[in-house]
């Protein structure tokens, strides 16, 4: 499967945040997406963990302030695998 990282993140985020993938951009954050509250943030983290088969460190979860940071963290972890 060669689905780009960004597309996979957008697909998962769209499901969890109850919106469509085209509304998710690199700048999307709890400020720009209404449904992105703390419960949804945890759900997003868990959904990404399952999608990419990995576990985030607490520090990494704290840093996921927007989609750009999610991608950065994921990028570094997926490369390590």
């Amino acid at each position, binding site marked *: 499967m060669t689905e780009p990282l960004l597309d996979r993140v957008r*697909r998962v985020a769209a499901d969890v945040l*109850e919106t469509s993938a085209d509304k998710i951009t690199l700048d999307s954050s709890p400020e720009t997406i209404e449904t992105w509250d703390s419960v949804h943030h*945890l*759900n997003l983290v868990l*959904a990404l963990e*399952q999608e990419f088969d990995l576990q985030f460190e607490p520090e990494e979860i704290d840093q996921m302030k927007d989609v750009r940071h999610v991608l950065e963290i994921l990028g570094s972890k997926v490369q390590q695998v």
Partner: protein
Amino acid sequence: MNSSEARHEVDLLISTEDSTGASRALGDLWAHEGSPSAASFVVQRFEQLRPTLKLQPYRLGILRSFTVEPMVPLLRAAAFCAGIDLTVYVSDFNAYVQAITEQDSALYKFRPDAVILAVQTRDVAPEIWNHASALSVEQARASVARVAGDFSDWVQGFRRNSTAHLIVHNLEQPVLPSRGLLDTQPGMSQSAAIVQINAELRNLAGSQVGVYVLDYDALGARHGRSTWHDERKWVTVRLPIAAPNLNRLVTEWMRFLHPLTGKVAKALVVDLDNTLWGGVIGEDGMTGIRLGSEYPGSAYQAVQRALLDLYRRGILLAVCSKNNRDDALEAIDKHPGMLLNRSHFAAMRINWTDKSQNLREIAAELNLGVDSLAFLDDNPIERQQVRTALPEVFVIDLPADPMKFETAIRECPMFERLTVSAEDEQRGAIYQAQHAREQLEQRVSSREDFYRSLQQEAEIAPLTKASLARIAQLTNKTNQFNLTTRRYTEQQVAELNTKPGWECFSIRVRDRFGDNGLVGVAITRRDGDTTEIETFLMSCRVIGRTVETAFLSFLAGRARSQGAQRLQGWFLPTKKNAPARDFYSTHGFTSAHQNGDGTLWTLDLAANSLPAPEWIRLRILNGDEGRND
């Protein structure tokens, strides 16, 4: 189909208003992915579809000592796919004791149908979890007693305030015991202490109606304790379970919700070739098929063992196979590797007709709705054909590897039961007797001769502790001969039996072919000069043999002796209870009132004697000795 395409397909079906197709596509998507993101999608789409689907509403409360919020969408998605519209209430963090003990807590205001108490060893037995190595044998014993006492207080407190079902998580073992190898030696043992608490919990649940244990320790062990937890998330967000395991806990919860909501299969229809044995009997012959204790035939014996377990749980087995009948029967009767034999099957269709037609016939023969059938077949094409032609049938998805068949059967939540009555354990034999009756019916010339030759004996008894589970079970599963289709939990039946004027009776029927067991329930309420039949139902396997008349006659006689002038009862029509429609009118009742829900029928007790059929020997057990209070 990848996950984006699957989502597009669902949305396409929704936009064309094909809600059945959309709900099936959502079920497939959920079965395939089962992830938090899929859950969120499935829940959103089902919420759009809700008005067009017939889903069963159910209310579940969760009392917890850890974060369960991420499990709620997973659970609701799984429930939607099973036909249940689940509303979930989650208690405040660690507020479960108040939620249980306070009569007007938010939990009780929510009016749950069932409640899960999900607490962990480290929360309710912290000294055993954290400091086991510091405890003396006596201290550990005291600790076990305290924790068992806490559970007992919570369960009893819950029962004082609610009639809902209660599912209690038992306590998990640590991955490694704190005293290492010493834990298995005489003296203080952490694991033994937890085992003892869990044993107490089992006894506690056994002593209370509607209280069940979820074996959380076994669940973790089954999937691997060492990878079950995510300690980082426990410490940071109080979520102790790793992401891939969230859905495993949800699946375990669903195992309870299936029997609680009646989403169960009453019969399992099985294929023969490559399902009950390896190979094709018509080609490989008796010596060629693989079935025995050695590999690879062992896989099929494992399947048969699983089926025997279901049979003993009261689930009927039937055969549906494309074969020459004689070949197949020879294997069933004579193959030394067979664990099942002909007497285990309540119906057989061994022919070349298509399977959905055979399944319809089997349902009719067993007096079941098609939606009560499950279907087991190794051939994905047959499964697809049945799925398309009969979407109500629960089709078990078998993996390609026969060594995994057994697990697929045992995992199926449609076969879960929370109580097993004596009737369930004998159900297979009961259906065999039914065969003999039908043959007799065809031989004798008149209906009356048939009734007489059956030599029926009926025993009517008031509610007892021993019959409570069966009575509640019948109110929940009887659809056809059921005048009002009112469902009650065990707790509700026990409770209304203590109200003034209310009575609950059951009827057992025996005849020359065997004991049918407890097959009918009547609940009545006396109000002045009128006795109203709140519930009247009979298992359809005894209907048409005049036992129902004997039961109604008893109710009339009892009402009369208590001074009632009138016996009345509603017929509330449903999709399934047409067999009961004319019951009151054929017994002399007249229609007194009609509204959108149904018809109220009434019988003048002075003018109508309503005699019991003389060919039934009737025994009435004392109306007072067996009261449940």
